[in-house]
């Protein structure tokens, strides 16, 4: 059992990771590509099964709240009924059923759009806080932010056509350079973490060893 818990996951990671990396660089032998595809398909299959564990967790957490009548337990009923009824509808009637599509189109889609639309207000309030010129850096952020905003809308061009040119320069030169620098750093970081996992040196995902 100890081998199963400690060594097997590491070796599976080492083997799968090495084969998938090799398949990126080598066409031959053909077995490498086939095995890498096989591992990646298994990844999708396992992730799909894992979703069931997630649904189980939702039912357990909210079931406990209802059982113990914790605060706001009424909301838990909404979650449990919503999850189970839509699941049953999908399993019994099928995904092409009209009722199944109706619930998706008339409940999920508008609710989803509503939640997303709140982002505009959050973005505005975040900009307001970030753009307060408390120090030199914040003042620089404020100035460049205002120029980019004015350069992106028609009224900015109407006030002064130079806004558009300065905005283009800010986006293409300092912004692109900084983003590319961060991207290179992040890519190297990803390589570092991936190598540590593939070599069995990173074990945080095995329960904080």
């Amino acid at each position, binding site marked *: 059992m100890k081998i199963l818990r400690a060594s097997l996951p590491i070796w599976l990671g080492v083997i799968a990771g090495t084969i998938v990396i090799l398949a*990126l*660089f*080598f*066409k*031959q*032998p053909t077995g490498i590509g086939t095995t890498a595809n096989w591992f990646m398909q298994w990844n999708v299959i396992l*992730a799909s099964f*894992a*979703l*069931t*564990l*997630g*649904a189980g*967790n*939702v039912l*357990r*957490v909210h079931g*406990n*709240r209802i059982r113990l009548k914790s*605060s*706001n337990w009424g*909301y838990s009923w909404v979650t449990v009924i919503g999850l189970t009824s839509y699941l049953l509808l999908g399993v019994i009637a099928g995904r092409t059923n009209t009722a199944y599509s109706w619930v998706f189109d008339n409940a999920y889609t508008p*609710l*989803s759009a509503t*939640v*997303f639309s*709140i*982002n505009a207000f*959050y*973005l505005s*309030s*975040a*900009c307001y*806080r*970030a753009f307060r010129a408390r120090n030199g850096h914040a003042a620089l952020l404020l100035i460049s932010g205002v120029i980019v905003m004015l350069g992106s809308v028609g009224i900015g061009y109407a006030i002064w056509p130079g806004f558009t040119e300065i905005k283009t320069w800010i986006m293409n030169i300092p912004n692109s350079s900084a*983003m590319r*620098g*961060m*991207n*290179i*750093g*992040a890519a*190297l*970081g*990803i*390589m*570092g*973490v*991936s*190598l*540590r*996992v593939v070599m069995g*040196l*990173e074990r*945080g*995902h*095995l*329960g*904080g*060893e």
Partner: protein
Amino acid sequence: MVELVAGTTGKLVFLVTFIVLFFYFVNRTAQGHKLVIRRIAGFDALDEAIGRCTEMGRPVHYTFGIGVLDANVLASFDVLSYVAGQCARLNTDLIVTNALGEVQMMTEEIVRGAYVNAGKPDEYKADNVRFVSNIQTAYMSAILGIFQRERPGANLMMGPFYAESMMLAEAGAQIGAIQVGGTGRVIQVPFFIAACDYTLVGDELFVAGAYIARKPIQVGAIYAQDFGKWLTLVLVVLGTIMSTAGNSAINDLMKK
């Protein structure tokens, strides 16, 4: 018979160089050479955030974002392990929300392990490690609800974030939570910078294991990453100068 995929020779050379550097520095640390990592404010702020929650009697909220199980999540596990350990020691509730089904079991194991290591296995609350949804808007709604109902004093967001970064960070700021954000998805970093108290930029999230746990092997790996950065910088500068002078040798090497 071994045959290379066209256009990957340059990348393979870079990867092999990186692996050689990686082993060199891991060996150096294994032999007892002390390698130093600069201070990272985002990680130093974790104790401050958890301590604040303890004083206020509020929970800590931790989430990974909606992306797939990748290097961001693996790096985030080290941070979660540390945060869970500190919460266990300080008797502060930790709420972990998850959008990734495949990560749920690992998350439970990590948090439970941290409580066991802190000598408080009975304090672990399984219902506080919650899978909320793998759908972005449902995931955001669930966390916004947690913010309003359970009022966490700290909001820690480390992992592969997409558009939810802005909404979660700003909602966290509005309930007065101290916030630390970190992601390798560079496009989301500006949102964290605008709304969070501390942000891990670029590769900072990926040094979590080395910085927080001070594991020597991982510290060695960070040095390899830094050398990789220098190597990239040299290639960029050299490539720019040579291209300007009409010599495309480095460009051709990277395209091979």
